[in-house]
């Protein structure tokens, strides 16, 4: 598979009243054409920030991309001019946000918003863009899409809004689609519907998909490869199948143990990961996970491990072989 995107040593810092928060700390990963990459982790582990920085959408101030490179089609997105980055946003790399209620503009019609990328990136006139928007809405199964074009977001149900968001993201047949918690606010049946739809559409267009979520079930079902993030760092990289069968990082092991499985004895208790996620402005010395880790050794208090390969296409950042 061809390499589409590579992120090298990306660091994003936020300056807050309590000092500098390293929201994303020296992460590197690659994305191949047509594959689905899952990024999992707890709230505040830096998964959304790492995705937003791909399109340079980090609000600055307080956020700042301090280091690294993001190579896409042979150029570094972090060095691209404002015009170049506007040209990529929504066109080559599209983003589908969580919370479709607040992510759609309440005073513009669905049609206006879905048609916008066509007008910006393909220089279409209003009428032509509107016609394309109807097609785009049809693709995401919005019934009567010609009529619904004139509706405002508040006239759509939650699932329809998210579908409109997906339609908007897919308008220009982007190479990469980033879905940031795309189904958080929706009920389970609609979640499954939308993810299947999204996956199908990316297969149709050959786009790569990055799914950011804290829902391990979604990852298991839709992702090919997974990055597990903890406190701004990637702690485990593996294929989805591998991760579920043989999680190697203590944090990933903990995550798997905390999720109920259908085939498990009903009497077994779920095992939570003890403790709280760390304060990003005040990380512990050494490995950020060690205060909560059951397998910690002396080394963990002293220095932070970097990623090491343990088997084919499987890397972990841990001193211990569990």
């Amino acid at each position: 598979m061809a390499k589409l995107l590579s992120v090298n040593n990306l660091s994003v810092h936020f300056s807050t009243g309590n000092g500098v928060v390293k929201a994303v700390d020296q992460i590197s990963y690659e994305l191949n054409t047509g594959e689905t990459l899952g990024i999992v982790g707890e709230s505040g582990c830096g998964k959304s920030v790492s995705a937003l920085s791909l399109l340079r959408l980090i609000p600055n101030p307080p956020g700042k991309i301090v280091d690294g490179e993001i190579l896409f089609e042979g150029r570094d997105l972090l060095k691209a001019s404002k015009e170049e980055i506007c040209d990529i946003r929504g066109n080559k790399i599209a983003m589908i946000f969580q919370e479709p209620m607040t992510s759609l503009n309440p005073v513009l019609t669905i049609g206006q918003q879905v048609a916008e990328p066509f007008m910006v990136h393909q220089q279409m006139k209003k009428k032509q863009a509107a016609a394309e928007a109807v097609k785009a809405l049809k693709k995401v199964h919005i019934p009567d899409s010609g009529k619904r074009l004139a509706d405002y977001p508040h006239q759509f149900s939650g699932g329809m809004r998210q579908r409109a968001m997906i339609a908007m993201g897919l308008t220009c047949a982007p190479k990469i689609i980033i879905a940031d918690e795309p189904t958080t606010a929706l009920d389970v049946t609609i979640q499954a519907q939308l993810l299947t739809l999204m996956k199908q559409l990316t297969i149709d267009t050959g786009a790569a998909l990055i799914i950011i979520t804290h829902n391990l079930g979604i990852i298991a079902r839709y992702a090919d490869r997974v990055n597990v993030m903890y406190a701004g760092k990637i702690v485990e990289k593996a294929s989805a199948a591998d991760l579920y069968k043989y999680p190697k990082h203590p944090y990933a092991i903990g995550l798997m143990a905390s999720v109920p499985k259908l085939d498990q004895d009903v009497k077994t208790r779920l095992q939570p990961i003890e403790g709280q996620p760390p304060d990003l402005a005040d990380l512990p010395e050494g490995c950020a996970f060690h205060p909560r880790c059951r397998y910690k050794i002396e080394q963990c208090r002293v220095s932070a491990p970097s990623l090491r390969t343990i088997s084919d296409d499987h890397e972990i950042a841990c001193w211990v072989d569990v």
Partner: protein
Amino acid sequence: MKRYLAKRLLYALLILFLVSILIFSIARLLPGDPIQAAAMMNMDLANEEIMDDLRSQFGLDRPVVLQYGVWVKDFFVGEWGTSFGSGEPVFEMFLRRLPVTLELFAGYVFWSFLIGFPLGVISAFKRNTVLDAAITSTAIVGISVPVIWEAIVLIYLFSVHFQIFPPSGYVPFSENSMENVLCMIMPTFVLGTHSAGMYMRYVRSSLLEVLGQDYIRTARAKGLKEMAVIMRHAAKPAMIPVVTVIGIDWGYVISGSFLVEYMFALPGFGRMGIDAIAARDYPVIQATLLIVALFILMVNLAVDLLYGYLDPRVRVK
């Protein structure tokens, strides 16, 4: 949208009806009546028979409800009665003063928008800089300084000390356009600066709030240029709170304009109203109050319609 418009119009008419009753009653609730008041001045009238005769002549012996009906009917056909003071038809007095007040209002809108909006936008985009702090504190000064004090300071500075503008008085535009503009600059500026400070603060805060919304990030993620993001996605929602403030402010500016007309000796509605109250000139008081009420109602109606245009969620309800 049509239903929304009809509903708003109906509300406005209902309120106008209630206000007209209020205005009419206030005049009737004062002790005595115009004939009695006139008789106090003129001994020839101090006779029960003559007074009753006059009352029937002016329709004052008719039932109050009927009197009210006649007043409303006459008001809408432009028969606003005659002033007790000058004997001039009230309607003509109004027509004569209308251009002065309209000019004052137009100038006020000009200054308040010209100063308030750009400064608010600049302040929002340069937030937490020295420039922002300077603009914001100037705005507070603008809001806090009383109209009367500002008028006196301006008159002292630009009429007494530098002698650029006339200190008071009014020259119609048709007579001398240059002098007309000169005599209106200070009064309109005084009224305008007061509101400009308020607009600036509302434009700043509402723009900042909108720019922090998720849908602005969505617009940026679609590849829209920053200018398009602001004009297409931020401007309309940011205007909603600002329109509210302008609507309220235009109601309040009437009292400010009464003061300014007095300070700068401009022959507008405000002057006429104050003089009429001092002279207990009932037809003029009634007409002035009703015109003010009508103006405020129209502003409110306009604000409601603008809401409907700006925010589709309002339209449906």
